């Protein structure tokens, strides 16, 4: 079996959210640490799409920024083609990695410099990495990239504000592709877009993956989008992974109660008339996570062990799950997702 392209091992990242020094001294307040990512491990194979799903505060965006080295992990390693890049410190040492790993951001309005022309925005990585091929001009390369993402080469002379949200995401994709990367981290690339535009962008991303052999780390809170895009899925909650499995396994045989909850909250567009039973409670603040299993306050199957002991990821058939209930075999089988079950039943 070939080596995975990316391996994250026991990644952890803490943010210091302590009150200012003066307050700490005068009021005797302690330092507070926010464990945004708390012991996360996964692997991504070349040419595949790995999706990280979760709600706000689960740490998926932080993981994205760790992989792309916008932050340096507090602990853990990130091996890209076998070499750990988490320990690199100097900007120069990271340059080879940066060329091969790029990112697409969520907000199409804040991710392009409003004062730069589109052509300059796309050309920046080409210039920064010195990637101009022999006998080619920057203008030609930029024109090619624009065409590749479905825009016209003339669009290079315009400014970002002249474009719609979907077009700006295309520009962002063109910029990300300018350094000829192997790996793209996509942080909720379509969450800010209308549904019909989202379809265009997702289709484009699939085309590009096929044409250029790209590997994607796809961050999203929308399970339906993940179902469409991903080969492998990791579900995160309060900085930890609950379940990692192939997309097919997650959507037909989800095991962790939180995964089931997420699947249950998907709206039923087949109009089967089945009422969803919404689960109570909200995501707790990551500054003060519950002890033991982070999900226990909302879990209908929590017992004393869940409240005290933190579950570890374990292999269960074709998935890895971090749940005492699954380990002890306590959880009822079967799923309750009307959309999938009904359609599958109807299909025979």
């Amino acid at each position, binding site marked *: 079996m070939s080596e995975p392209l990316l391996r994250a091992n026991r990644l952890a990242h803490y943010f210091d959210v302590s009150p200012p020094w003066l307050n700490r001294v005068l009021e005797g307040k302690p330092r507070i640490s926010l464990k945004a990512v708390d012991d996360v491990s996964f692997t991504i194979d070349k040419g595949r799409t790995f999706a990280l799903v979760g*709600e*706000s505060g689960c740490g998926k965006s932080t993981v994205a920024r760790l992989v792309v080295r916008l932050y340096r992990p507090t602990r853990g390693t990130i091996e890209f083609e076998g070499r750990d890049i988490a320990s690199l410190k100097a900007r120069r040492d990271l340059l080879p990695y940066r060329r091969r790993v790029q990112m697409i951001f969520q907000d199409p309005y804040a991710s392009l410099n409003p004062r730069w022309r589109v052509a300059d925005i796309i050309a920046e990585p080409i210039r920064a990495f010195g990637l101009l091929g022999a006998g080619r001009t920057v203008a030609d390369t930029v024109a090619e990239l624009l065409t590749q993402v479905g825009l016209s080469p003339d669009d290079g002379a315009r400014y970002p504000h002249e474009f*719609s*949200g*979907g*077009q700006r995401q295309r520009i962002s994709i063109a910029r990300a592709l300018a350094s000829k990367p192997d790996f793209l981290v996509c942080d909720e690339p379509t969450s800010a877009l*209308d*549904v*019909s*535009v*989202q*379809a*265009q962008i*997702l*289709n484009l991303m*699939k085309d590009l993956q096929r044409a250029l052999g790209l590997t994607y780390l796809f961050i999203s*809170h*929308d*399970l*339906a*989008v993940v*179902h*469409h895009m991903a080969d492998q899925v990791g579900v995160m909650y309060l900085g930890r992974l609950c379940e990692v499995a192939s997309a097919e396994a997650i*959507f037909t045989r989800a095991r962790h109660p939180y995964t089931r*909850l*997420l*699947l*249950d*909250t*998907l*709206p*039923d*567009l*087949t*109009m089967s008339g089945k009422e*969803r039973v*919404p*689960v*109570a409670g*909200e*995501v707790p603040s990551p500054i003060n996570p519950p002890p033991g299993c982070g999900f226990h306050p909302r879990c209908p199957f929590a017992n004393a062990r869940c409240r005290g002991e933190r579950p570890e990821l374990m292999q269960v058939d074709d998935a890895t799950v971090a749940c005492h209930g699954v380990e002890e075999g306590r959880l009822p089988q079967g799923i309750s*997702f009307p*959309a*999938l079950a*009904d*359609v*599958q039943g109807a299909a025979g």
Partner: protein
Amino acid sequence: MAAPLLQVRDLHVEFPTRRGTLVAVDGVSLHIDPGEILGVVGESGAGKSMTGAAIIGLLEAPGRIAGGEIILDGRRIDDLPYEEKRRLRGKMIGAIFQDPLTSLNPLYTVERQLVETIRTHLDVTPAEARERALSLLKEVGIPAAEERIGHYPHQFSGGMRQRVVIALALCANPRLIIADEPTTALDVSIQAQIMALLKRLCREHRTAVMLVTHDMGVIAETADRVAVMYAGRLVEVGPVRDVVKRPLHPYTAGLMNSIPVLGRKVEYLSQIDGAMPRLHQIPEGCAYHPRCPQAMDLCRARRPEMMVKGPSSVACWLHQEEAAVV
């Protein structure tokens, strides 16, 4: 048959700019029956929020209602003087907006905001108002309401804040609530809770809801009828089952097909090429024709009117029997 609670006839909302007048809502007519939930769905720029704002009287200048009528419970309300409109808000029409953070005043406790609104519209003593506020908070599912009524908005989480906003909208027993993207800013697991709560409360209080959103999933689960808007115009209205499963208008069909759905594994999502036209670039004839795979010459020439087809209405020449004749 009971008369509709809200009737909007040929509503026009315009924005004068120095480059000319932009029409944000172009001849929209709809109605809401008492106790009914009408979804108004459309993508950004379609004019759905403008419609809601016009009805509740909160259009921001220089936007203004340039034509049409809004009739609430038999009374015309769009041409009322400011004071009367103000009294209408809260008493007859409640509002729920997208961002629970800015919908509540951060400087006042929840109790104060609720009591103030209750006493503005209902003739009750302060003690009665507080009782009512407490019972409302319990109704919307705030745990330990006795204690939390004295808290400030920032002490609540996002979902809890939105529940308080719902309580605030309901406290004067309005007949109609305009909810503009009430769950978009919330986590998915909370969205389901809030929508279920809204639906249940509105049934219990017999309050009609105009639910403005871009999220078809929310509409499918909550609304009774749905109106689809495109470029400031209404393209289809009908019972939610019909519009979602058997859409009449090509845009609605395109929209439904482009939504990724579990259980339908496709290689590529069906997409609508192009984008919704900007307000100053709306084409002649049917606004959707440049993107419509079934566009005919008639579509390019004349703007279609709303045509009745069973329980639904649709603005599309494809559904007119004499469509072939230009």
